[in-house]
C-alpha cells in the first residue's frame, strides 16, 4: 500500500510534495510564462487554437440569445397590447437556430479542448517519465521517489480532471460574463453600471475569501493524511494491536482523527455555503436595483420595457460564475501548481549526462579499470572518498570490503557511472567514463544491485532486461550456465512464471537468482556486484554462491563484499576505510598483517561462533 488514496476533497486537489531539490519551484511564475513553457514542450497545445477560440466565441454568444429574444418579444412583439405573432415567430425561430448552433459549437469546442489537453498532458507525462529516468540516482533517490512518481501520475491526473470538470466552466463563465456585459452596455450603459456596482463588491469579497478557503482545504488534506495514518495502524499494526491488547487506544486515536477530519470538512463546507449564499443575496440585490433604476430610467425614455426585462435575465448570467469562482480558482491554482511541478522536473538538468554522439565507445576486449585521484562528496555533504587511486587488471576478481559508511558502495556507484566524481577520473581502458556513450557503457558494464528488483512480468521478460532480443531458450541457457537449470524447471511455469508485484511470488534469494541471470544474459565485460546481506534460505544460499561463481568466471568483477568467503576467494581485496583505500592485496597477504582487514576478519569469525 505504497500510495494511500488521499481523496481530493471537494475543490481541493492534493498537491503535496515538494519539487526536486536542484531546481527550486519557481515561486510565482506568471501564467503566460507557464503557458509558453507548455507550448515549447508540447506543440499540440496551440495547434488549431484559432478554430477552437472561434467555436468558443460562438458558444458563449449563445448565452445571450434568450435575453435578446425576450427583449425582442416584449419590445416589438407584445407592446401596445397588440401582439405581433409574426415578429415573435421570427424572433423565436432565429433564436432557436442560434441556440442550436451555439450548442453545437460548444460541443465541438469541448471535444477539441479535451483532445488537445489530453494530448498535451500525455506528451508531458511521457517526457517527464523519460526525463526522470535520465536523472541520476542522486536526484531520484528513494526518499524522493514518491514525489517524483506523483509528477507523472497524480499531478498530471489532477490537471486532466480539472480541465474536464472545471476548466471549461471557468472558460465559458468568463466568456459568458464578457458577452453579457457587452450586450448590457449596448442596451443601456447606466443600467450596466448599476449591475456592476452590485457585483464588483461581491467579486472583491469572493477574492478575499479565497485564501481562507485555500487554507481550509489544506487543513482538510492534512487531516485526511492523519486519518489514513491512524486507520492504517489498525490494519498494518493488527498483530501488535492484538498481541499487546491495545485496541481501545487505537480506536480512540482513529475516532479523534476521524472527527478532526469531519470538522475540517464541515468548516470548508461552511465557507463554500457562505460564498454561494452571498452570491444569491447579491443577485437579488442586483435584480432589485435593476428594477428600480430601470423604471426610473425607463420613465425618462432611456430604456425600453423589453430591455429592462432582458436585463433581469442577463443578471442571472453573472450569478453562477461568481459563485463558483472561488472553487474554480482554487482548483485551477492547485492544478496549475501540479503542472508547474511537472514542468520543473523537465527543467531539472541531467547531472550525469550521456555524452551522446560526440562520445566514445569502449574498445573491444577486456577492460582495465583505473581510479585516478577520485574524490566524491554527496551534494552539500563532506567528502566520502578522498583522492582514491586504484587499478583493476582485466579478468581479475576484486572484493571491496570495509565498515558500514566507509565509502565502498560509493566506489561501486562511480564505477557504473551512477554519478560522477567530484574530482579525479574513472577510466575504462584509458577512456574517461564521462566520455563513454551510455549505449556502449551499459552494454559492457553491468551492475547487480543488492535487491534484484523484478518487474511484474514473467521471469523470462525480467531476464530480457539484460538483453532485449534474447529468446526464451536463451534465457533458459543463461540459467543453465549459472547451474540453475534445476531451479527454473522446478517452477510451475518455468521461465514463463510470473513473478508478481516486485517479484513478491519469489523468495528474496530467488529474486537474486533472476537478477544474476539477467546479468549473465547481458554478457558484460565488467560486472559490479553489491552482495546481498538479507537472510535467505540455506538451499538458495548454496545456489546463489554457485551461480555467482559461474557468473564471475572469466570476467572482471568488483564485488562489494559482506561475506568472508567472497573476500577469501577474490584475486584482490581492496579495503576501504573512511573514504580511503587503506589496504590492498590477497586475503592471505592481508589477514596476517595488523590493520583494518584483520580487525574485520576477527569480527566476522566472532559473529560466526556466536560468542
Amino acid at each position, binding site marked *: 500500500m505504497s500510495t494511500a488514496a488521499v481523496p481530493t476533497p471537494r475543490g481541493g486537489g492534493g498537491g503535496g510534495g515538494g519539487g526536486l531539490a536542484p531546481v527550486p519551484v519557481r515561486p510565482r511564475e506568471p501564467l503566460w510564462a507557464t503557458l509558453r513553457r507548455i507550448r515549447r514542450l508540447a506543440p499540440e497545445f496551440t495547434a488549431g487554437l484559432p478554430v477552437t477560440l472561434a467555436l468558443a466565441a460562438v458558444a458563449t454568444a449563445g448565452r445571450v440569445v434568450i435575453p435578446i429574444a425576450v427583449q425582442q418579444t416584449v419590445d416589438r412583439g407584445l407592446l401596445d397590447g397588440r401582439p405581433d405573432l409574426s415578429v415573435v415567430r421570427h424572433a423565436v425561430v432565429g433564436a432557436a437556430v442560434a441556440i442550436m448552433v451555439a450548442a453545437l459549437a460548444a460541443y465541438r469546442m469541448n471535444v477539441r479542448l479535451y483532445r488537445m489537453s489530453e494530448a498535451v498532458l500525455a506528451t508531458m507525462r511521457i517526457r517527464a517519465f523519460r526525463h526522470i529516468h535520465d536523472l541520476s540516482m542522486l536526484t531520484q533517490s528513494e526518499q524522493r521517489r514518491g514525489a517524483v512518481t506523483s509528477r*507523472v501520475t497524480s499531478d498530471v491526473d489532477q490537471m486532466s480532471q480539472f480541465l474536464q470538470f472545471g476548466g471549461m466552466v471557468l472558460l465559458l463563465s468568463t466568456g459568458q460574463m464578457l458577452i453579457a456585459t457587452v450586450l448590457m452596455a449596448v442596451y443601456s450603459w447606466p443600467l450596466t453600471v448599476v449591475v456592476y456596482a452590485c457585483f464588483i463588491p461581491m467579486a472583491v469579497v469572493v477574492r478575499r475569501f479565497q485564501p481562507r478557503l485555500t487554507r481550509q482545504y489544506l487543513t482538510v488534506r492534512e487531516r485526511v493524511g492523519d486519518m489514513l495514518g491512524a486507520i492504517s495502524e489498525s490494519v498494518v499494526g493488527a498483530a501488535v494491536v492484538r498481541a499487546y491488547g491495545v485496541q481501545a487506544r487505537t480506536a480512540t486515536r482513529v475516532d479523534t482523527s476521524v472527527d478532526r477530519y469531519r470538522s475540517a470538512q464541515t468548516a470548508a463546507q461552511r465557507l463554500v455555503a*457562505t460564498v454561494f*449564499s452571498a452570491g444569491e443575496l447579491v443577485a437579488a440585490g442586483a435584480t432589485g436595483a435593476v428594477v428600480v433604476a430601470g423604471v426610473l430610467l425607463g420613465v425618462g425614455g432611456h430604456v425600453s420595457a423589453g430591455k429592462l426585462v432582458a436585463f433581469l435575465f442577463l443578471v442571472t448570467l453573472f450569478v453562477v460564475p461568481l459563485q463558483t469562482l472561488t472553487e474554480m480558482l482554487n482548483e485551477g491554482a492547485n492544478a496549475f501548481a501540479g503542472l508547474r511541478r511537472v514542468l520543473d522536473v523537465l527543467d531539472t538538468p541531467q547531472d550525469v549526462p550521456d555524452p551522446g554522439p560526440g562520445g566514445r565507445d569502449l574498445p573491444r576486449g577486456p577492460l582495465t579499470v583505473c581510479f585516478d585521484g577520485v574524490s566524491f562528496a554527496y551534494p552539500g555533504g563532506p567528502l566520502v572518498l578522498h583522492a582514491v587511486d586504484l587499478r583493476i587488471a582485466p579478468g581479475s576478481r576484486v572484493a571491496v570490503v570495509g565498515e558500514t559508511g566507509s565509502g565502498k558502495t560509493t566506489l561501486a556507484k562511480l564505477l557504473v557511472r551512477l554519478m560522477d566524481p567530484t574530482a579525479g577520473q574513472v577510466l575504462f581502458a584509458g577512456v574517461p567514463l564521462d566520455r563513454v556513450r551510455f549505449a556502449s557503457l551499459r552494454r559492457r558494464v553491468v551492475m547487480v544491485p543488492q535487491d534484484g528488483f523484478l518487474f511484474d512480468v514473467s521471469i523470462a521478460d525480467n531476464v530480457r532486461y539484460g538483453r532485449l532480443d534474447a529468446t526464451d531458450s536463451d534465457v533458459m541457457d543463461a540459467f543453465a550456465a549459472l547451474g540453475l537449470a534445476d531451479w527454473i524447471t522446478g517452477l510451475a511455469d518455468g521461465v514463463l512464471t510470473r513473478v508478481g508485484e516486485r517479484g513478491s511470488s519469489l523468495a528474496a534469494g530467488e529474486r537474486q537468482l533472476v537478477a544474476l541471470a539477467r546479468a549473465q544474459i547481458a554478457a558484460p565485460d565488467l560486472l559490479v556486484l553489491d552482495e546481498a546481506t538479507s537472510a535467505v534460505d540455506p538451499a538458495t544460499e548454496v545456489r546463489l554462491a554457485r551461480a555467482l561463481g559461474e557468473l564471475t568466471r572469466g570476467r572482471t568483477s568488483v564485488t562489494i563484499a559482506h561475506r568472508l568467503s567472497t573476500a577469501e576467494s577474490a584475486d584482490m581485496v581492496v579495503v576501504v576505510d573512511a573514504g580511503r583505500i587503506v589496504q590492498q592485496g590477497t586475503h592471505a597477504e592481508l589477514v596476517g598483517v595488523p590493520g583494518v582487514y584483520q580487525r574485520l576478519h576477527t569480527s566476522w569469525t566472532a*559473529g560466526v561462533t556466536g560468542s
Partner: protein
Amino acid sequence: MPEHAPSPAKAPAAADAAAAAGAEAPATPLSAGSPAVIRRGLAILGMAIRDEPRTFAVAVAGSSLFGLMMVASSLVLGEIVDRVVLPSFETGRVAVGGLALAAAVLLTVGAVRALGMFVRRLGGGVMTFRLQAAYRRRVTRQYLRLPLSWHQSHPTGLLLSNANADVEASWAPVLPLPFAVGVVATLIAALVVLVATDPLLAGVGCVVFPAFGAFNIFYGRRISPLLSRAQQLRAEVSGLAHESFDGALVVKTMGREADETARFARKADELRAAMVRAGQVRGLFDPVMDALPNIGVLLVLLVGTARISAGSLDVGELVRVAYLFTLLAFPLRAIGWVFGELPRSVVGHRRVSTVLRACGEQRFGSGVMAGHGPVALAVDAVSYTYPRRSVDGRTPAIMAADAAGPLYPALERPVLERPALERVSFEVPAGRVVALAGRTGSGKSTLAGLLVRLYDPDAGAVRIDGVDLSELARGEVAAAASLVPQQAFLFDDTVRANVALGLAVDDAAIWDALARAQADRFVAVLPAGLDTQVGERGTTLSGGQRQRIALARALVRRPRLLVLDDATSSVDPRIESVILTGLRARAGASTVVVVAHRRATIELADDVVYLERGRVAGHGTHRELMVTSPGYAALLSAYDPTGAACGPTGPTYSPTGVDGSPAEDAGLVR
C-alpha cells in the same frame, strides 16, 4: 456548473492507484443505469436518511425553502412587470411606493432564498460528513475486532481503501440529495404555478422537464463505463510508473530507459484515448443542459404570445413563466448528480458492508492467570491452515463485491495449499529458553503467533501453566505473554508511548527496558529523548532501531512468556549478541521462545524445536539434534557450506540499512 461538482471521475474505490495496477477489467460490470443499481442505490439513500433524519430534514427544509423562493421570485417578478414596470412605462410616471415595495419584496425573497441555500448546502455537507465519519469508525472498529486470520486473508491496500475511498463513495450521493429532494418540491410548485397561469404553458413544461430527466439517464449510462475505464487506466499508468521508478537502478544500469519509456508511452496513450472518448460524451452534457431550458423559454415565448393575442395571458405572466424556466435550469441538474453517483455508491457500499458483516470474532473465556514468574508452555497437537486466499489476494466474498468495480491484485503471500502447522506438540518448562529452527516456510512464525493467541489453532491447544489460551479472559494473554514480531511496528507517537503502549510505567522502567534492548544509547541522543516522535510507523528510525524499541516494549512488561519472532533480524549481529546474552542471563524471569535464523541464536537456547514443513521433526539440545536429526544437521551446515564457521548469511559485518548507517552504504539506492 457545479454546485456540487459531478465527481464521477474522482477515484472510485480503487483509488489506491498502485493497488489497482494491473487489475483486469471487471468480469460483469453492473450497467450504470440499470434498475437493479438504481433500486439498490435508493435503498442506500434510505439508510442514510434513517441514520441522519434530523440533518436530512433540516437540509431538505432549506432546500425546499430555496426552491419555493425561486418560484416565488418569478411570481414576484411577473407581478412587478405587470404592476410597476409596464404601468410606469405607459404612464411615464413612477409609482414610488410601488417601486419601493417591489424592491423590498425582491430583496426579502432573495434573502430567504440565500438562507435556504446556506442551510441546504451546509446540511447536505454535514449529513455526508457525519455518515462518512460514522462508517469509518464502524469499519475501523471491525478491523480491531476481527481476528488476525481475517486480516491475513485481506490485503492491506483493500482494507485501507474500504475505510477511506469506499466509505466516501458509498455516501457520495448524499451531498446533493437534499438539493434534489428540494427540487422535486420546487418542480411541483412550479407546475402548480404553470397550470394556474396557463394550461398550454404548463404543457410546455411537461415536455421540457421530462426531457431533462431522459437526457440525464441517457448521459449517465453512456458516461459511466467510460469513466470507469479511464479510472482503471489511470491506476495502471500510475502502477507502471511506480514500478518503473522503483526499478530505476535496473533500468539505468541495463540502459533500458528508452524501452521503459515506450512501455509507459503505450499505457499513457491508452489513457489519453480513453479520456478523449469520455470527453466526447462529457462534452455533450453542458451544451445540452444549457440548450434544453432555452428551447423551453422560446416555446414559452411562442405559445405565450399566441395566448396573449387570444387574450388569455398578460405580459407579466409570460415574463414570469420564462423566468421560471431560466431559474429552474440549474437546480434540475441536482437530480442528475444524485443518480450519477449511485453506481459508485452501490459498489462502495457493498465493499464496506462486506467488512461490516464479516464475522469470526475471537471468543474469550473467563480464566485468570494466577501467580507470577515464568510460565510453563505446552503446545498440544496444534494444527493451523491459513484462510484460503486466491492468487490475486481476494477472498470469494470480495470477488463478489468486486463484480462491479476495479480489482485489487496485491499478492502478499503465496497461496499455501497445505496446513502451515500439523499436529505440532512440545513443552517448554517454566523459565527455559527454546529456539524454533527450520527453513523458510516451515511454520516458525505461524507457531510464534499461536503462542500469544494472535489466532486460534484449527485443532489442538496452546496452554500456559496448564490453562488453554482460549479459556482466558480478554486481555489476560496480552498481560502474560509478549510477542516481538519480525516486522517491528511502531505507532506514530513518542518513544515513551511506543514502549509503554498504555502500560502505567515510570521512566526508570522504560529506560531499563531500553537498556536491555540495547536501545538506550541511541534514544538518549534523539532530539527529545523519550519524547521524540517516531513518525508514521517509526520512519524516522532505522530498521534495527525500530526492532530494538519493539523489543523494549515487550521487555518493559516483564512478560511471563516472551516470544521473539526473528525480532532482531535488522540489528547488527554484535549488538544482537549482547541483547540475547542479556536475555539469557535473566532467563528464569521469563520463559523465552525465539525464532532463530542465526546459529549464534540457536546456541543460546536450552532446547531447539526443529520444524520441517509444519511438523516437529526434532526436539532436543542443539548438540543432540546435530546427531539425531539429519535435516537439522543439514540446515545448520547449509548455513555454512564450506565447513568453516559461518553464520546463515555469512558473517555479516555491515548489515545494510540498519542502525543508522549512513544512507551511502545502505545498499545501492534500495
